[in-house]
């Protein structure tokens, strides 16, 4: 794979799944 393709794959994955992880943690902490 080219470096550019790897970069954009990692970027997209990090924002989306990273975002999910953060919201998941907040959801667990908010305990409603």
């Amino acid at each position, binding site marked *: *794979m*080219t470096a*550019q*393709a*790897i*970069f*954009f*794959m990692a*970027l*997209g*994955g990090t*924002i*989306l*799944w990273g*975002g*999910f992880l953060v*919201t*998941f943690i*907040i*959801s667990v*902490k*908010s305990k*409603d």
Partner: protein
Amino acid sequence: MEKQREQWNSKFGFILAAIGSAVGLGNIWRFPYEVYSSGGGAFFLPYFCAIFTAGIPLLILEYGIGHKYKGSTPKCLSLINKKFEWMGWWPIISSSFILCYYSMILSWAVKYALMSFNKTWGADTNKFFYEDFLQLSSSPTSFNKMVLPIAIGIFVIWLFNWAVCYRGVKKGIEKTSKIILPVLFIIMFIIVIRGVTLDGAAKGLNVLFEPDWNAVKNPEIWISAYGQVFFSLSIGTGIMMTYSSYLPEKTDINNSAFMTAFANCGFEFLSAIGVFSILGAMATMQNVPVDEVVTSGIGLAFIAFPNVFTHMGVWGNILGVMFFVCLVFAGITSSVSLTEAISAAIGEKFDIPRKKVVTAICVIGFVLSLAFATDAGLYLLDIMDNYINNYGIVCAGLLEAVIVGWYLKPKTVRDHVNKISYFRIGSWWDVIIKYITPGMLIITVVQSIIKEFQTPYGGYDTLPLLLYGWLVIVIGIIGAHIISKCRWKSSDK
């Protein structure tokens, strides 16, 4: 006496059901092609802008309204102002049409999942799909016969919708989502792992992710990014308002909206990796450039992929079963959510108990869906899907944003969601709901109309476009007005 409204058992149950509704067939067969054809890695710029300036704000709007007014979409809008009630019925009628053709596609996916065990589609998957499987007629107005295996599949899908919604929010929808969603994500993850380890997968991923920055300068790419996010999150269908109306008083709306959007978009991102890895492997096998094998929609799922699976030995059988099960699981949770949105609206309006209304809707829905089990079913689906999505659903979302942005005032909803959420949203949200979202949706509708006049959709004749396209839109608007004139019979209205 006021009736006790059903409630989710837990917030995660609601989030899983909402993700299940958002994750649908489009995540698997539309998004990968959208990225590829809209600038690859560069598409992420408009895509993320669309998620943060339209997708998440609209989800917060729908969750907020549903939670504040505690009702289905027509009920919520009628509580804002009786004159707006029809704007709540229009998406419900559109959803009814969607549900009918969705059941047909799911019946195909069920049949293909079974056929994957011995790859009965043979070597020519194109001929098999159109001639043997669909027995497609020569024109959209030529109905000659009923295709029995598809009709049986449709029956099975409606039976499932009925069984889930009949049991209610907690025991039916929530329980089913808690089983199906994790399994769907695990299967997709396995497909991705196997996909990226195939010979030639890198070729596909390069084509998918390498950025073309010129594409970002094209306004059409921005419109398609907003369209992708809008359709992907099940906004404007009446589902999210209905689902959030089952939330308890104290809940976290803002974070739930972010979580739903990230999970849905994360899933479609995974799908894109899986799909393009397999397409890269296919191109390598056939010794052609990846661009020659790239396709989307029905052609990808029922023609291109079966063709790849045919040439993959035992792994073809395994991946075939997993891929079509993925399609079924992704679609069935959306199908259940559509059934629930329709049942809740009609049940509330005419004060019909859940079990009766769900049964009636599923029986009527099954009978109407049989039109799609005929040899002209594919044409019907193709035309109806284009018009309902591009006009019915987009206009419903637009009207919602205008009502909240310009009549109710966004601050009313923002104050409500901020009062109960873990983190607060600022006045930026008001600006988005008032100006950006309506603006983008108006541009989307205008662009669709201009395209329509330049080239009639799909190259079809005027008659089928009028009958299955524009007439469906007209039925939606007139039907919505008629139903909204009837009196509310439920005691809690």
